[in-house]
């Protein structure tokens, strides 16, 4: 353990106590300026912009340097960023955005609607990996004035603003036209030395070590940012990363890299704060079923397996009691659409009966059939979950074996070769189910591409519901359709939802407002301050 002097400890605790007492008044004061926040990155980013890839490290950097048109608040509703106002036409086809007047690029040029137009038409729609999931709905995107910008859609698309606000889903931060025009956006040197409009300016990228950003003195939002410097340090080894955090060498571990077995200890340690919010992505841990398997293709077998698995134990032992049991294919914090009504109870007796009924009686050795459970190394809780599932399945006579692969091999086996029986996988389900749920389970998504319908699930009725729901802009009516979809998915079981991955970020207690929005791990740190 780190040993500060006795006096420092006393001073620190009394300051904390005072802070707790002062409460609202302390918050009413403007946070002080200055200080450096050091954030851990799990790997070297591929670039420092968000238009090329969807890797977390790149987003964690890019969101500090760039702005989006809109962002999302805690309830996943759009809030202003570069767009200060917007209107949606009554037919749901025309979105008009009015940009702030005073935004400038880090090189001093003004941010205008022409930049927005160029970003969507010439960059995102052409090179972003997920553009195929929403760009086809767009009829046109054009600047109608220096600071006004209009999207016209081909048909109403309910999650349109959510899509724009979720940088993780769309990569939609606005890039400078004058830097990218006439170049290949994939190889432009500015991808590694970015010029943005955001709260922090790019300073240096020391390859393999860290990325340093400094305060943008001319930032267009008043009084922001508070911090002088942001350092994003590349720390790929989990054990070393945790030591660095405990020693106070880094100040922030985002939720994918906070080890759940240490959360309890961190919660009691006054040097740290746990920020348990900010998962717009509403990530579920699932077990995928391969619908091509000779026994798993039978829905009764899939349902029996769902009854055989003790998901409470997985939550308690694999996630050390953090998070929740997942009860549907939509996460519970996408509250407008989530329903727990079609969940399975843990009932081994029923599982045995259903397997008998499916004609898979136990042999003389007590076994019915064999399955392989695959998982990809890197997320230890998935491995522990797989072992619990193996034991649960053996209890009902299904001979399960667990195999682990490195991630590229796993993705290749599951999503390209379709050579698996059961597989552990995380899927996002938010910020809107059209964005995150439909691409996994629609029949047209049975494709040899990562994180789509490698399970081979196909139900024409579900497809019809998928194809209809996003045209419905009335939330309660749309929620009713999603209730039907969740009923079908839970009945047909393309995958069994196991747990909702708890969003737990860990930060040094010296900093405030490190996480303010629903995309806490990749959001801009413009509001963060040192106490």
């Amino acid at each position: 353990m780190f040993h500060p002097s006795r006096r420092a400890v006393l001073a620190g605790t009394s300051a904390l106590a005072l802070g707790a007492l002062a409460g609202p008044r302390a918050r009413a004061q403007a946070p002080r300026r200055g200080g450096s926040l050091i954030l851990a990155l799990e790997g070297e980013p591929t670039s420092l912009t968000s238009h090329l890839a969807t890797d977390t490290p790149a987003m964690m950097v890019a969101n500090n340097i760039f702005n989006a048109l809109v962002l999302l608040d805690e309830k996943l509703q759009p809030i202003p960023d570069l767009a200060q106002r917007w209107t949606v036409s009554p037919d749901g086809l025309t979105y008009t955005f009015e940009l702030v007047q005073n935004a400038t690029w880090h090189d001093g040029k003004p941010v205008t609607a022409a930049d927005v137009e160029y970003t969507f038409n010439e960059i995102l729609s052409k090179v972003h990996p997920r553009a195929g999931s929403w760009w086809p709905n767009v009829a046109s995107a054009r600047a109608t004035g220096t600071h006004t910008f209009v999207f016209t859609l081909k048909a109403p698309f309910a999650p349109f603003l959510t899509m724009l606000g979720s940088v993780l889903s769309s990569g939609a931060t606005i890039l400078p036209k004058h830097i990218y025009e006439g170049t290949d956006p994939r190889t432009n040197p500015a991808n590694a030395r970015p010029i943005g409009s955001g709260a922090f300016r790019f300073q240096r990228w020391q390859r393999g070590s860290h990325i340093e950003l400094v305060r943008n003195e001319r930032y267009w939002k008043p009084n922001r940012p508070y911090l002088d410097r942001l350092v994003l340090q590349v720390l790929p080894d989990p054990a070393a990363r945790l030591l660095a955090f405990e020693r106070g060498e880094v100040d922030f571990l985002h939720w994918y890299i906070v080890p759940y077995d240490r959360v309890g200890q961190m919660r009691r340690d006054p040097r740290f704060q746990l920020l348990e919010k900010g998962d717009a992505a509403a990530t579920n841990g699932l077990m995928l079923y391969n619908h091509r398997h000779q026994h798993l293709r039978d829905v009764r077998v899939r349902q029996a397996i769902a009854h055989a698995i003790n998901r409470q134990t997985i939550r308690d032992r694999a996630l050390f009691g953090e998070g929740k049991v997942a009860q549907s294919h939509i996460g519970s914090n996408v509250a407008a659409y989530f329903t727990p009504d079609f969940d399975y109870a843990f009932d081994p007796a029923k599982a045995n009966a259903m397997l008998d009924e499916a004609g898979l009686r136990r042999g003389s050795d007590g076994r019915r059939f064999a399955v392989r459970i695959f998982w990809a190394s890197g997320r230890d809780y998935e491995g522990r979950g797989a072992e619990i599932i193996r034991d649960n399945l053996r209890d009902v006579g299904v001979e399960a074996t667990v195999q682990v692969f490195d991630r590229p091999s796993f993705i290749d086996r599951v999503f390209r070769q379709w050579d698996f029986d059961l597989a552990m996988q995380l899927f996002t389900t938010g910020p809107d189910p059209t964005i995150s749920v439909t691409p996994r389970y629609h029949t047209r998504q049975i494709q040899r591409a990562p994180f789509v319908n490698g399970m081979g699930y196909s139900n024409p009725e579900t497809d019809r519901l998928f194809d209809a729901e996003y045209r419905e802009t009335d939330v309660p009516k749309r929620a009713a359709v999603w209730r039907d979809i969740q009923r079908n998915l839970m009945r047909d079981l393309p995958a069994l939802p196991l747990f909702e991955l708890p969003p737990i970020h860990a930060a040094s207690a010296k900093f405030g407002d490190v996480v303010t929005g629903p995309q806490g791990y990749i959001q801009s740190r413009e509001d963060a301050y040192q106490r």
Partner: protein
Amino acid sequence: MLFYVARRLAQAVPLVFVIILINFFLIHAAPGDPVFVLLGSMDTTPEFVERVRREFGLDQPLWVQFATYLGKILSLDLGYSLRFQEPVLGLILDRLPATLLLMGTALTVSSVVGILLGAIAARRPYSVTDHASTIVALAGYSMPVFWLGQIMLIVFALHLAWFPTQGMYSLRAPSEGWGRVMDIARHMVLPVITYSVYHLALVYRLTRVKMQETLALDFITTARAKGVPEGRVVFVHALRNAVLPVVTVIGLNFGFMLAGSVLTETVFAWPGMGRLLFDAIGARDYPVLMGLFTVLSLMVIIANVITDVIYAMVDPRVIYR
């Protein structure tokens, strides 16, 4: 001598070719698709996957890809990283100084300290000190690098807080000039020790055995009988003879150390080539992997030539033609 060096380097050319050939097909035989890794953690369309694959030339038959690669390498072009969209050579050169600094220091420390301790231990074989150091050396020799690294971190960085846990610089308070040198030195202590232990043990053991043999020879007895001071007998007369095989082992160590850099640099978050290699494997970044293997094999070949040259300088009996 120059002619000899040139000839040795020329002989290495077919070797490098074979290394490139084997590496290329081995790397491509590993399962996993770089495009899938490249696209990140979200879903995408197969059309997009195909397009990216086409753009990178990954849709071509393997032998076509190999021919293209060979053609480029002949013009000293190591290609473009799939992951970073930047020239591979630049990525490697960015990381090379950090690795050379760490490795050079570790190689020097392990060689010098290993030889000195070996020479001292050989003076009184089978004494308590000798047995003790032999046991310590055996332990060092058999300790896995990643485990030792973790233990060093927990003891010296976390509990005693003498050294930082990771990285090459202090990021909270960056310093310039002399302060920066001291900062890097402080960050180097734990990785250098971790890195050195195995090689130190090896060099120590070998020196000790060779010294013991040499110290039993007649010319040593003669020297002592002549009244040559003991320090001069050990470090000039005996060591000069005993150190010959040790030089060869140090040359070999260089190659092993390059391999070991993957583990050490990952445990200590050291921004060198070993980490780049580790990341490139995870991303199936073929051009970076190929570039690294080529550069690493060149370094090993050059290290061997240097070893031979040093050998000639130490051993006057060796004549080069």
